[in-house]
């Protein structure tokens, strides 16, 4: 299995699709001549030409709308948003058109559209450019929302996205682009709605996705030093959500800690916790703990940004709480 960076795994999946399927094309700001703000589309303009790698103006509503039109007419556009924060300009196109056209048309047309780009905080881009938008989209029927954490996830989920019939919200992470990991040489497509047990364990279930998976795995290593055997679930996909894997894990551990980078109120962790309560209520020995970002606009100052996002120590503390270890803090 070759080792690839997260960035190159995405790029490889795009190249594979474009070579295999002539209807696949890319749109976005600075993806061609500039080769992509995060270099995901490096060299693709030269390789596939300006009809399939289209540099757009700064006009999210326009080029997302154009991509939806292409998809309705049989193409497979892949839109890069420079960060997911800019998708808010195209929110109406995504929520009211991409997600609903099949429904409005009685199933006559699909919108096989992938919108991808970096989501979340941690690279000092300040309040407007550091948001985690997953719940905005995971709330909406008609959309698929995935959040790969590893190069293999990125490869496998993007391959599935590029073969499906649905609009896919593909959430990357700026801090992950340089991370390396093995990527399968074959198909390696990962089905949506199927979570991965990234680390099996007996004592507590830690649920995470995207960059928080790496934080959760490090927390699990620290917990192991205390004799706590944590199971870490890599969700991969938020919509659909793999409740079955969550419940199976909690049935074994009887405790869960859910990690998200977003603000706590009405976040993904709330939905995940509720799914656990619904499926495993009388298997729980403690209330589900949420580890989340601070409920503030993301600060620019590095020290403050670090304080506003979850870290290993927060997860370790939450795991101790659900295990009733280390004091009697109210949960």
């Amino acid at each position, binding site marked *: 299995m070759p080792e690839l960076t997260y960035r190159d795994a995405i790029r490889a999946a795009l190249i594979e699709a474009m070579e295999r399927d002539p209807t696949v094309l890319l749109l976005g700001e600075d993806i061609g001549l500039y080769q992509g703000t995060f270099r995901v589309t490096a060299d693709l303009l030269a390789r596939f030409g300006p009809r399939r790698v289209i540099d757009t103006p700064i006009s999210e509503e326009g080029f997302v709308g154009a991509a939806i039109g292409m998809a309705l007419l049989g193409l497979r556009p892949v839109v890069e948003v420079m960060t997911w924060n800019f998708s808010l300009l195209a929110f109406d196109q995504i929520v009211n058109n991409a997600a609903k056209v099949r429904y409005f048309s009685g199933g006559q047309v699909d919108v096989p559209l992938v919108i991808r780009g970096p989501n979340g905080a941690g690279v000092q881009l300040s309040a407007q450019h550091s948001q985690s938008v997953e719940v905005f989209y995971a709330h909406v029927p008609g959309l698929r929302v995935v959040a790969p954490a590893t190069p293999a996830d990125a490869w496998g989920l993007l391959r599935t996205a590029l073969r499906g019939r649905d609009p896919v919200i593909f959430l990357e992470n700026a801090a992950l682009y340089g991370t390396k990991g093995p990527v399968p040489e074959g198909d390696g497509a990962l089905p949506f709605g199927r979570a991965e047990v990234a680390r099996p364990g007996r004592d507590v279930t830690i649920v995470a996705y995207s960059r928080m998976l790496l934080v959760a795995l490090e927390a699990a290593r620290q917990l192991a030093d205390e004799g706590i055997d944590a199971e870490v679930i890599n969700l991969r996909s938020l919509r659909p959500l793999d409740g079955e894997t969550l419940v199976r894990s909690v049935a074994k551990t*009887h405790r869960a800690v859910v990690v998200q980078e977003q603000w706590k109120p009405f976040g993904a962790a709330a939905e995940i916790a509720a799914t656990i309560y619904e499926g495993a*209520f*009388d*298997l*729980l*020995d*403690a209330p589900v703990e949420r580890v989340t970002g601070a409920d503030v606009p993301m600060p620019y100052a590095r020290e403050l940004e670090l304080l506003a996002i979850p870290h290993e120590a927060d997860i370790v503390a939450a795991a101790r709480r659900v295990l*009733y270890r280390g004091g*009697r*803090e*109210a*949960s």
Partner: protein
Amino acid sequence: MAEVIMPKMGDAMTEGKVLRWLKRPGDPVRKGEPIAEIETDKVNVELEAEWDGILSRVLVEPGSAVPVGAPIAVLTRPGEAPPAAEAPPPQGPVASPAATAAPPAAPVQAGTPAAPPATPPTGVVRASPLARRLAAEHGIPLETIRGSGPEGRITKDDVEAAIAARAARPAPAGAPAGPPAAVREVPLSRMRAAIARRMTESKQQVPHFYVTMAIAMDAALDLRRQLNARLPEAAKITVNDLVVRAAALALRRYPNLNASFAGETIRHPAAVNISIAVPVAEGLLSPVLHDVDRKPLWVIARESKALIERARAGHLRPDDLAGGTFTVSNLGPYGVEAFAAIVTPPQTAILAVGAATPTPVVRDGAVQVATVMRATLSADHRVTDGAEAAQFLGEIRRLLEAPVWLAAEVPEGELAG
């Protein structure tokens, strides 16, 4: 709206079982009307409504035992809105004391509510869902488990510890024991278990001593004959009533015998409440005659008859078992000459009365026949001593041998030596 709580019926009672509801949610109830039948350690009693209203909710399933003081139902007063539907779930059953093997409760003094084990006064047990399920699967009442989590939450570990502790205990009597045995094992009834526990406690913890006197009952029996000749059946006076009346007046003069030992203090109740030992089919009950020292003989006779009747019929009321400060046990009707009884904590003394029998006695150097009754006082040496017990018993003898005071109204403090 008010909660109906599991009443404390008897000083050693820590929990009670709701046998059945006599009213259903939504039924109107009148003050004094029985709403449920409650089984205590020893006896079944009917719980009466304390006010008029609507029984809006029952919180305990029939067959479930709950700690004293725990809410078992909600009564809505006329005109009140019924309570919101956020009902706590009915309490799970608490096993019998034999099954839970909870440590025997220390003697509880009259007036102090017993502390229910590990249960907050709301009656809601905090437990994780998993702990609830495990406990239910193993038949362990949550009320018997102490929670180690935040705010006393019972966790999986707590239930597992309870399961392990139970497994470590010997199998209960009645377990299969190989080939048919020559001995038939009969599980203890609730009453038998309570008597066994409390009498063992008393004999182990209370340093008993005993004083006995012979009492000539001729004058007392003569008085009784005269009174009964004019009294209706329901108020006819028994020998026991005479003894109870004499004991009540004597207790006023010797309050130590009416007191109880409370560790650092001697506790003196204001009232003189005499328990009378009543044999019943399953064992023994000690219902209480209240404020006996303030009641004339004929009232004592009437009340004691009704009390004994209720005890035998299993219709004792909560008050009937609470607050006794002294006990009279009379085996005279069975032909017993004399016996010594075991003190019932927290009381200090018990008077054991034998039969009044024609007996040769020596008076003025001559042998005469007198009707003699032998009475033995058992007393707690932590509270009283031999001389005081003897003086107290002597006062009872004096009152019975010169019984005019038994028939008279005796104002407090008026009866001098």
